[in-house]
């Protein structure tokens, strides 16, 4: 029995010479009980091998490979991904009415499910990139150039047909005078108590055309940004204090976005030091 056991074991462990192997297989053909024993042992050996494979794979699984396929690589890729996630979040919020900023983390799933979510979008013509941010806690948003060109055109046309639910944004007093709006901005920034509540703002970027190289516009409750926003990261800051105000942060500059302006307005960096200081404080939170 001991001999048989060893022979079977050597056979299954691939330790027999070709000659020995041949002889054993001949013996096997004429001995059904030996055959049965071999089959039993074979399954156990296969199980051991399988367990080793699982062990090796588990070991490999624990090797860090530099992030997921979607986010690894160039920064640009990551930024585009972030834009896509933002789109998903906007749609998610719209569908469920339960904004939850904790959903920002799992990049991969969100990117993967994007095509479906986009199809179910209540916006058949526009696919805006939007953000869901906490007040005074800006979220970076970045978008792809090609899409946004079309989006701007369609967004402008679709006013009467668009079923978009208007974002819950308080509108500041209409005023065309920059000095006045700056006052509003400053009041908001300096008196803001930093209450935290979910807010939504749709943002659409468009390549600059000849007339509008660095401009913005509020239309149909959406924010349109004209300019090279596909080249660098931009952020939208919303501040809810006694007054509500929206700012753009782009390339180390802050810009006031006056929601009362429905015409295309040029973006001018804020220079007022007191206001800048406050904005940086909120931004850094």
């Amino acid at each position, binding site marked *: 029995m001991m001999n048989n*056991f*060893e022979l079977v*074991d050597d056979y*299954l*462990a*691939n330790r027999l010479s070709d000659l020995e192997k041949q002889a054993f297989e001949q013996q096997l053909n004429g001995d059904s009980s030996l055959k*049965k024993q071999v*089959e*039993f*042992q074979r*399954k*156990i*050996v*296969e*199980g*051991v*091998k*399988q*367990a*080793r*494979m*699982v*062990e*090796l*794979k588990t*070991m*490999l*699984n624990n*090797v*860090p*490979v*530099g992030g*997921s*396929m*979607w986010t*690894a690589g160039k920064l640009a890729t990551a930024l585009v991904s972030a834009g896509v996630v933002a789109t998903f979040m906007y749609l998610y919020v719209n569908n469920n009415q339960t904004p939850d900023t904790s959903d920002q983390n799992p990049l*991969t799933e969100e990117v*993967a499910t994007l095509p479906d979510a986009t199809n179910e979008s209540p916006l058949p013509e526009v696919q805006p990139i939007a953000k869901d941010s906490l007040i005074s806690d800006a979220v970076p948003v970045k978008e792809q150039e090609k899409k946004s060109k079309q989006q701007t055109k369609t967004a402008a046309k679709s006013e009467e047909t668009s079923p978009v639910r208007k974002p819950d944004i308080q509108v500041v007093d209409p005023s065309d005078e920059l000095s006045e709006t700056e006052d509003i901005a400053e009041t908001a920034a300096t008196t803001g108590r930093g209450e935290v509540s979910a807010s939504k703002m749709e943002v659409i970027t468009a390549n600059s055309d000849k007339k509008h190289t660095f401009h913005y516009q509020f239309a149909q409750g959406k924010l349109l940004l004209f300019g090279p926003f596909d080249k660098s990261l931009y952020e939208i800051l919303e501040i809810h204090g006694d007054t509500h105000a929206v700012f753009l942060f782009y390339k180390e500059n802050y810009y006031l976005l006056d929601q009362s302006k429905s015409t295309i307005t040029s973006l001018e960096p804020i220079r007022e030091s007191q206001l800048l200081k406050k904005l940086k404080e909120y931004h850094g939170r």
Partner: protein
Amino acid sequence: MAYRVFKTGLEMNEKDLFERIQKGDEKALEFIYKKYYRMMTKLVITNSGTEEEARDVYQDALVVFWQKARTGNLVLTSKMSTYIYSVCQNLWRKELDRKKRLSNEEKDSGETMDMDGPEREKIIAKCLDQLGETCRKVLMFYYFDEMSMQDIADKLGFANTDTAKTKKYKCKQKLDELVKAQYSESDFLD
């Protein structure tokens, strides 16, 4: 940090890296895994696979590579990456075929899959765990890695090959008993 030292030491010489694999250096396998991760998973992802499937295929391919190298059944005539890549290709092609067949079978709604295999593997894995770490290693090294008794003795710190041999024999007997206790023999063979 240890990794970095390892990396610079190995990157220069592919032959050396392959020799380490042949000797059973799992760190070398981890290094290769990391080095070619994007290249290999991309192959699957760009051929209608998910990232998870890509990772799975790549890991399977590396395990095949490992076993072939360990058992001396692989003579490298090309770069390691070329070999691993072709294994990935084959595995993914097989998986795509399997998926296709599966979807056809679903339409016929006839065949059932063999569920005994995975179930049996689970039971054996459980029994292996019950044997303890040394037995587990001895049996895995012996059957999967096809290590010599001398190598097993060296790797696990046994006094000599006789100790390794006895250990293997006892561990295997014990495993058989444990598995038999889980199954009646006829059930197991079904």
